[in-house]
C-alpha cells in the first residue's frame, strides 16, 4: 500500500504521536520511514538571527532524532532524518515530492483561531498542496485520517 512514509516532526506532543503512528504503520506495511523537521526563519531574515535559529534547530532536533532513531531501530526500521529551513508547509511538501513519499504523517496542534487566521495552519496547507496522501494525527483522538490527492 504505502512504500515510503514521511513524518513532519516539530518536537511537539502531537508530532511525537504522529511519529509513533507512522512507525506502527511502516512496520506493518514494510515501508521506508523518514522524518523531516523545519527551522522556520523570521521575516525578513536578519544577520545573526538566521544563523542562531539554524544552530538552535540543529542541536534541538538532533537530540530528538537520536531518540526517534532508537525507537525505529527497536522495531527493525532504519530512519532517515532531515532538517530543512523555510516555511514548514512548503518544505514538507518539497521533501515529500523529492523523496517520492506516498504518505505524509503529521500532528495537529490545534492553535487558536486568531493564530490560524494570522499565520495559517501548517497541516491545512500541507493537506491542500501535498503531492500524496496525508494523515493528520490529533491529540486526544486515537487516529483521524484525511486524504489528499493520491500520488
Amino acid at each position: 500500500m504505502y512504500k515510503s512514509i514521511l513524518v513532519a516532526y516539530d518536537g511537539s506532543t502531537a508530532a511525537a504521536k504522529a511519529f509513533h503512528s507512522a512507525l506502527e504503520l511502516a512496520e506493518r506495511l514494510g515501508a521506508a520511514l523518514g522524518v523531516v523537521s523545519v527551522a522556520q526563519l523570521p521575516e525578513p531574515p536578519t544577520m545573526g538571527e538566521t544563523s542562531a535559529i539554524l544552530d538552535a534547530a540543529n542541536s534541538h532536533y538532533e537530540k530528538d532524532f537520536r531518540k526517534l532513531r532508537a525507537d525505529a531501530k527497536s522495531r527493525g526500521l532504519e530512519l532517515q532524518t532531515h532538517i530543512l529551513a523555510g516555511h514548514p508547509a512548503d518544505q514538507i511538501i518539497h521533501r515529500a515530492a523529492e523523496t517520492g513519499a506516498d504518505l505524509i504523517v503529521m500532528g495537529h496542534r490545534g492553535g487558536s483561531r486568531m493564530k490560524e487566521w494570522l499565520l495559517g495552519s501548517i497541516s491545512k496547507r500541507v493537506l491542500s498542496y501535498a503531492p500524496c496522501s496525508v494523515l493528520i494525527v490529533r491529540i486526544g483522538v486515537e487516529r483521524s485520517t484525511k486524504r489528499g490527492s493520491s500520488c
Partner: protein
Amino acid sequence: MTHVWAQASLWLALALLATLLSIWFRIATALSEIVVGTVAQLVIGALIGTTALGASESWITFLSGTGAIVLTFLAGAELDPKVFRAKWKEATVVGLIAFFAPFFGCAAVARYVLHWGSQPSWLCGIALSTTSVAVVYAVMLELGLNKTDFGKAILAACFINDLGTVIFLGLVFAPFTWRTLTFVVGCLVVFPLIFWLTPRFFRWYGNRPSELEAKYLLLLLFGMGALAAWADSEAVLPAYIIGMVLAGTVGNDHQLVRRLRTLTFGLLTPFYFIRAGSFVLVPALIAAPLVFATLLAAKMATKFVGVYPVTKAFGYVKREGLYTTMLMSTGLTFGTISALFGLNHKIITQVQYTHLVATVIASAVIPTLIANAFFLPHYLLPRRSDHESTQKIAGDAAVA
C-alpha cells in the same frame, strides 16, 4: 543612578515586548524592535515628553553603537573564505556593480528628483546600495541553492557589495586629513597582524571561563572604532573588515560565536534597533508616501540596471539573471546603520532618515517576494542527497 536603572528597565521591557511580538508574528526581532521603538517614541513622547525615552543619552548611545559594531563584526565573520576563494572573480564583479549602480543611481534620484542636498543624497546612495546577506542566504537555504555554484557566487557577491557600503560610509564623509591617512595606515597594519596573531593567541590562551576571546575581540573592535571615530570615519568600517579577516578563526568557532550572539542579541542590538526606530517620524511617512515609493523604485531599478547585464555577461540565462538581480536588491541592517550614521552626524534630517529607514525595511521584503513569485530558476534546484542518515541545515551551508 536611579534614573539610569529606571530607563534601562524601560528599554529592556520594550526589548522583551519586541521579542514576544517577533515570536508571535514570526518576524525578525530587528524589525520588531524598530517598530516597537517607533511606536514607543510616539506614545511615550505624547504622554510624558519627547525626551522621556532618552534615546540620545550617552550610555544608550554607547550600548547602541556597540550593538552596531558587534553585529557588523558578526556579519563579516559569516563569510566563508573557501567559497570566496572559489568564486572571487564573479563575486567581485557582481558585488561591485551591485554596489556602485544603486550608489550613484539612488544618489542621483535623491538629488535631482527629491531635491535633497548633496551630502544627504550621497548618504541615500550608500544606505540603498546594500544587499542583505541574511535575506539572500535564507532564500538560498530554503531552495537548496546555497550548495550550487550559482548560489555560492551570489552569496560571495553580497559580501563584496556590503564591503563597498561600509568602505564608502567610512570614507565618503571623512575630511581626508592626516588623521584619515593615519586611520588607513592603521588598518593596513592591524588587519594582517590580527589575521596572523588571533588564531595563535586563541590557541595559547583561549577556551577558559574568563572569556578571553570576547575581551580580545571587543578590544580590537573598540580600539579600531576609536581610531575610525578620531579620523571622523565610521566604526562599523573596521568592524566589518575585522569580521571578514577573522572569518576563518572566529567564524569556525561555533561556541565562541554563540557566546558573542548572547551578548549581542541579549543586550546590545535591542538598544541599537529600538533607538533606530525611535527616530522614525510616522507623520512624515504619512505626509509624503511617494518619497518612500520613489526611493524603493530607485533602489530596485538601479540594481536591475547594474546587476542584470553583468549576470548576462557571465552567461546566466534570463531567469537566473533576473532572480540574482532581485535578490541583490534586498537590504536591511547595513541600510539602517548607514541611515543612523547620517542622522547622528547631521548629514540627513529626521524626515529624510524616516524615508530611508522605511525604504530599507521594504527592500528587505518586496524584492524577495517578486523574485520567488516570478523569477525562480526551478531547474537549478538540486535534489537533496539521501546518502547520510541525517542532513543538517547549517553544517553544509556556505554561510551560517
